[in-house]
């Protein structure tokens, strides 16, 4: 296994310079995610308009993988519906845990491809949680109905 498969340039770039890395002051949903194993902490902020993600951001402290994953997630999900977000998460989750995800509908294929650089974690079982923390936290933010719900992966 080549380390470069895990730490691709795009991952290193997003890890070092995360996008949408800020507190969203007009968020109407948020959740805190925590990986007690490595101490990673992430907060995902959402501004939902009906079922559309009108704005999304995150902050926190984490490894390159978890930071890059959160960063890419926010870029991809901006403007998406919750149903589309859920489909993308399901696809990504299956890809990194089972090695393969279900086919995506045509309009999401491109977004799925943008997540490919992160799927190197499937060869590093100890790191899968790092790649999925932000997504699990997003899920909690949506379900939380605007109330912070702590999420833990370990």
């Amino acid at each position: 296994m080549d380390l470069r498969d895990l730490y691709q340039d795009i991952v290193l770039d997003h890890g070092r310079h995360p996008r949408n890395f800020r507190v969203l002051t007009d968020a109407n949903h948020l959740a805190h995610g925590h990986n007690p194993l490595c101490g990673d902490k992430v907060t995902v902020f959402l501004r939902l308009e009906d079922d559309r993600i009108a704005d999304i951001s995150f902050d926190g402290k984490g490894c390159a993988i978890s930071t890059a994953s959160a960063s890419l997630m926010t870029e991809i999900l901006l403007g998406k519906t919750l149903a589309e977000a859920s489909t993308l998460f399901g696809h990504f989750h299956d890809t990194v845990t089972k090695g393969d995800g279900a086919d995506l509908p045509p309009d999401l294929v491109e977004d799925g491809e943008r997540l490919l650089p992160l799927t190197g974690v499937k060869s590093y079982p100890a790191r899968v949680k790092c790649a999925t923390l932000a997504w699990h936290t997003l899920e909690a933010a949506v379900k939380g109905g605007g109330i912070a719900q702590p999420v833990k992966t370990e």
Partner: protein
Amino acid sequence: MNLLLKERTMPATAPAFDPEELRRQFPIFARNPGLVFLDTAASAQKPAAVIDGLADFYRGDYANVHRGVYRLSARSTERYEAARETVARFLNATASEIVFVRGATEGINLVAQSWGPAFLQPGDQILVSELEHHSNIVPWQMLRHRLGIELVVAPIDGTGGLDMAAFARLLGPRTKLVAVTHVANVSGCVVPVAEIVRLSHAAGARVLLDGCQAVPRLPVDVRALGCDFYVFSGHKCYGPTGIGALYARNGLLDAMPPWQGGGDMIRTVCFEETTYQEGPQRFEAGTPDISGAIGLALALDFMTGLGGDAIRAHEADLTRYAEAMLGDIPGVSLVGAGPERLGAVSFLVDGIHPHDLATIFDQYDVAVRAGHHCAQPLMDRLGLPATTRASFGVYSTRADIDALAAAVRAAQKLFGC
């Protein structure tokens, strides 16, 4: 306050014994050629003397203890009790002061659950330090609500060592127990425990020392230290998992109520009333970890063969060398460990999270621990979510540390920093 010190120490003199030679006594290295094992503080590898000795015990001498009339059981009992003697000798204690437990964690829980309710009153204080492992925090917290006692925390100073002035200030008439580590697991900080025992006893407090990281690294003499309780885990000092020992100074055990009931810990049982054994047996309910105790004795004999002073010199040499080699790399800072660091070095690399580092190291066959090291309060105090820790054993060599330093540079290259 700068707790992350940039250290530049020159390498010390040559090791006190030949670790290359010793390595051959550890089968793991033959099966895993190229392994750079720098996680001994989490658990040590096992020498053939322990692995083979355990198999030999099962093959030749095994039966349950303290029960059988037959000779095989007598022989097994003899070996089990001889193991207690070995632990006692190793710590300069007597066998009646040694309780076999699953590990340091169980030892601390035993003291908390048995000694605690018997000797603590509401308003009493237990003084711990910021350096503690969760195992020396949580058992005392569990007593807090039950007994109405307080947990007081002695802080570290700007160098990462225990702030002794603050410790002395916090020690008061309400302090009934001081529970501190002998060597800190995150930083390798050697705590001045003899001084702590002296101050604590002068204040009328009992002292429990967590010797998990000390017993594998330096000679421990509980008599000389004068502590009341001392705990350690067998698996960190080259013995099996699931076994450890609690030392309780002469007389203390007899005053403590049993904490688990069952066979072996009783003298007589009838439905109306049960009378208990005295001394260590009172705390060893049920069939004990017989082979674990024997394995632990084999491990301690192995360490005695090397010599406590020689082990300490070897650990100190590697620690100085690691400080120098890591300190030489731009962007690397060491977590401060006060006046003396022994056997473990926690460090940070600018721009690379410890979890990423450990994954990259693993590709170079360098095994280290990354995370909070079961010491979240200390990590919070340091303002760090995690660190990377390299720790050493008798089989560790300077070449291992060279490989670590090379892996750090490779990670920096990969991350472009």
